Every structure is written in C-alpha cells, then in structure tokens.
C-alpha cells in the first residue's frame, strides 16, 4: 500500500434534512498510526467515520464534497467493496453489528461477502476469533454473550476482513473496567492503523499517541494526545473534561 492510510481533504457534508454536519475536514493518518478522535457529542465524529468507507457522502450518492483517499487511492463508487474491506468499521452498539444466528456466522459474514468459501473461510473466522480470544464461543448465539464479549466479537467480525485501517466508534463505552482493559490489550496488539472515536480520555492516552479534536464539524486540534489533554484551555473550549484526579502527565503513554 502506498501513501497514507487515510487522507481527507476539505470534506463537507450535510444530511438530507439540511443539517450541516461537516464544515471542511482535513487530516492525514499515516500507516500504522493510532489516532483518537475526540470531541463533544454532536461534533460530527460518527458522520466523519461513516465517510471513510463510503457509507455516507458523494460516493454513496449523497450530498457533500471533498476528497478522501484510502491507502493512496481515491474513494470511488467502483471500488467500494475493496474500500470496505480495507476500512473496518466497529459500531458502538454490538447488537447492531452482530446480526447473524451464531458468532461463527457473524464473523464469516464479511469474508463471505468478499468471496471466501469453505476451509479458507473457516480459517479466516478462526483466526479472527483467536485474535480477540473468543474462539471457544463460536457456536453461541450473540445474545448469549456478555456485553464485553459481544464487543470483542464485533471487533472480530471486522478483523476477519483483514482491514488495513480499523475504525472504532466508542469502543470502551458500557464496558466494565476489566472488559475495557481486555479490549485495550487486544487493540494494542493489532498490527493495523487505528482510528478510535472516544469520550474516554485516559483510554485515548493509553492507546493512541496522536489525537484529533473535533468540534462543530471541524478539526480544531491535531497533535500528541498528551499535549492535547494537558491543554486545559483547549479542553474547556470544546466541552472536554478529564476524569476527576486524572493527570495526563503522570501516566505513561502508549507502549509501542
């Protein structure tokens, strides 16, 4: 793959009801980077992320302008399937992501759409489940799993497509502390470019060396996570707050 993993230029988008969500977004994420996308509710984070694999935006037949490059090539209608393989999206609610009767079927859904069959498909499913430590739960129905397990399977469903970029929408939301840590262990062990929407600022600091701060449809800050979190004025201006007693300078950053 040549070029940066994600390159976004002057991205503008309004929903069909006229609500403007993105007012010109520019950023570049290099291969292998781990980046957190921070910002208050309604800043346009999820909207932005849905552009990266062509669900929203002009490629999907919607309104909006701007340029998105994934792995150096422009987003085009013709290679949407390829882009959707490259950019793996993990949704916030695992019940939205897991819709097949069993965990195995669900993880197989993506690769099967890519045309894999038979033993090749089985190997791919097994590999993805092992990556998230859920290989012993393959034949269980998703609603029998705990919330943390469902989140991990949701990550596996995307990993099974061997994405080059993994995009997660609030991966730590609704998880108990142990599940949250287990997920961090899994994510930090993956060899992919990572873009993660989160309100969980310590989580961002733990996993991502770089952060983008988004507010009102624009990127308002881009820099090292520690610097951003340490800038009290910037944080306050965009409705971001650190948890009580948390000092971003007192903890080690991501271990690479």
């Amino acid at each position, binding site marked *: 793959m040549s070029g940066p993993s994600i390159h976004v230029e002057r991205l503008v988008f309004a929903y069909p009801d006229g609500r403007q969500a993105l007012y010109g977004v520019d950023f570049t994420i290099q291969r292998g980077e781990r980046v957190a996308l921070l910002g208050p509710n309604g800043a346009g984070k999820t909207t932005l992320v849905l552009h990266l694999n062509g*669900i929203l935006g002009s490629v999907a037949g919607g309104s909006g302008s701007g340029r998105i490059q994934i792995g150096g090539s422009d987003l085009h209608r013709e290679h949407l*399937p390829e882009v*959707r393989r490259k950019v793996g999206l993990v949704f916030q609610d695992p*019940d939205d992501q897991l819709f097949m*009767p069993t965990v195995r079927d669900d993880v197989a*859904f993506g690769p099967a759409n890519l045309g894999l069959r038979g033993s090749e498909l089985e190997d791919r499913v097994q590999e993805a489940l092992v990556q998230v430590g859920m290989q012993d739960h393959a034949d269980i129905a998703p*609603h029998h799993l705990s919330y943390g397990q469902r989140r991990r399977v949701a990550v596996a469903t*995307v990993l099974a497509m061997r994405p080059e970029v993994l995009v997660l929408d609030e991966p730590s939301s609704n998880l108990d502390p142990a599940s949250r840590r287990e997920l961090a262990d899994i994510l930090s062990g993956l060899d992919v470019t990572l873009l993660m929407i989160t309100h969980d600022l310590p989580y961002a600091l733990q996993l991502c060396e770089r952060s983008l701060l988004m507010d009102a449809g624009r990127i308002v800050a881009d820099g090292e996570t520690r610097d951003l979190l340490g800038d009290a004025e910037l944080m306050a201006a965009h409705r971001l707050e650190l948890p009580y007693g948390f000092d971003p300078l007192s903890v080690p950053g991501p271990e690479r």
Partner: protein
Amino acid sequence: MSGSAGDGLLVVVDSRIHRLPAQVKIVALFVFVLAVVSTPAGVFWAFALYAVLLAACVALAKLPVATVMRRLAVETPFLVFALVLPFVATGPQIDVLGVSVSESGILGSWNVLAKGTLGVVAAIVLSASTAPRELLAGLERLRLPSTLVAILSFMIRYLSVVSDDLHRMRIARESRGYAGGRAGHLKAVAGGVGALFVRSFERGERVHLAMQSRGYTGRMPQLATSGAARNQWLEGLTISLLAVLIAVTARVASL
C-alpha cells in the same frame, strides 16, 4: 432475561432425531401432517397408530414427556373451540350423561382435537430437536427464498433484544409510579409499542449500515454447508411414510 429466549425451543440432548439434517425433519413434519389431516375422522384406529408413531418419535428424540406436555399448551384455544362444538353444531342429537349434544358436533370436535394434537406434537418434536439456526439452514436448503430466510434469521436474533427493550420500558414506566387501571395500562403499552417500533426501525437502519460496512451487496451468505445424504432422507422420512401408508389404508377402508 436474554438467556430465556436463548436457543428457542431446543432441548439439548443427543439423539438420532437431533442429528438428522433440518431439511429432512421439515419435510418429514410436512408429510406427516398432510397424512394426518387427510385421514377421515371416523377411522379411529388410524389415529391410534399415528399417536403410537409420534410417541416412538418423542422417545427416539429423548424428549422429556413433561416438556412436551407443557408445550401442548399452545393448543388451548383450539381445545376450547373443540369443546364448544358439540353444543353448537346442528344435526341429529344424542344424549351423553343426560345432556343433549350434536352427533356431528362430537365427531367434529374429535376431528379438531385428534388432528390438532397430533400436528402440535409433531411440531414440538421438530422444534425441540432442531436449533433455530439449523432450522433456517434447512429452509434455505429447501429453496425458501433467501430474503425470507434472512427475515426469519433477523427475527430470531432480535427477538430478545426487542423484548429486553420492552421490559426496560415497562420498568421505567412503573418506576415513575405509573399505576393506571387495566385500560390505562393497555394505553401505556400501546404508546410503548409505538416507541418500540421507532426504536426497532432505527436499529434496523444501523444494522443495515453495519451490513454494508462489511460488504453486503444484497445477498446473504449461505448458512447451510452440506446436503443430506440419501440414507438420512430415508431414515428421517420413515415415520412420515408409515403415516402416509396408514392414511391411504384408512381412506380405502372407509370407502
């Protein structure tokens, strides 16, 4: 809460019937029920034989008799209808224990009762020996349109999610001190159903996004992996074919 809706009605034991491919069992059920309903109501020995066949099936599937009995409860509305029939049907009357009832009504009642019960028990055997996923795979093998299979599959998957939603909404309502009468309660439930519909609709949109993100182009991947072998078909259809034999004999005998 979510555990109860779990594997549908499956009773987890290992038996010959559990191991049969789902498509074989579906066809077997269909043929059996057809044979039963086409038997004239007056040929009582035929129904006795069907019952014996079914009992053998239940035993073969190692299903607990108590479970089968409990699940027979779905038949209750038909039972009520069957019990009313002798009193409302017209025709020649006979006296039973001093009460005058219609003769054709009694036969009709027996007809509903016998055929209904046999059909329900057969369906219970299928549902208790086949996991929902297998059932879907079986329907798919039987060339049910894949859209229908997908709809059924989503229904199974999201039934527990939606019923959890409903449960939470009820708790929220009661926690805020809701205490309407019976009618008021119905009204609140109706409103809740509206909200539930909107929620489910939105979830549907999100699920569709998630499907698209994983390369969905309008065709669900196949669930079924392998077809049934010839001897599996033979094994599975034995009881149904016996039932057909009985039905034909009964027809001929009652001519």
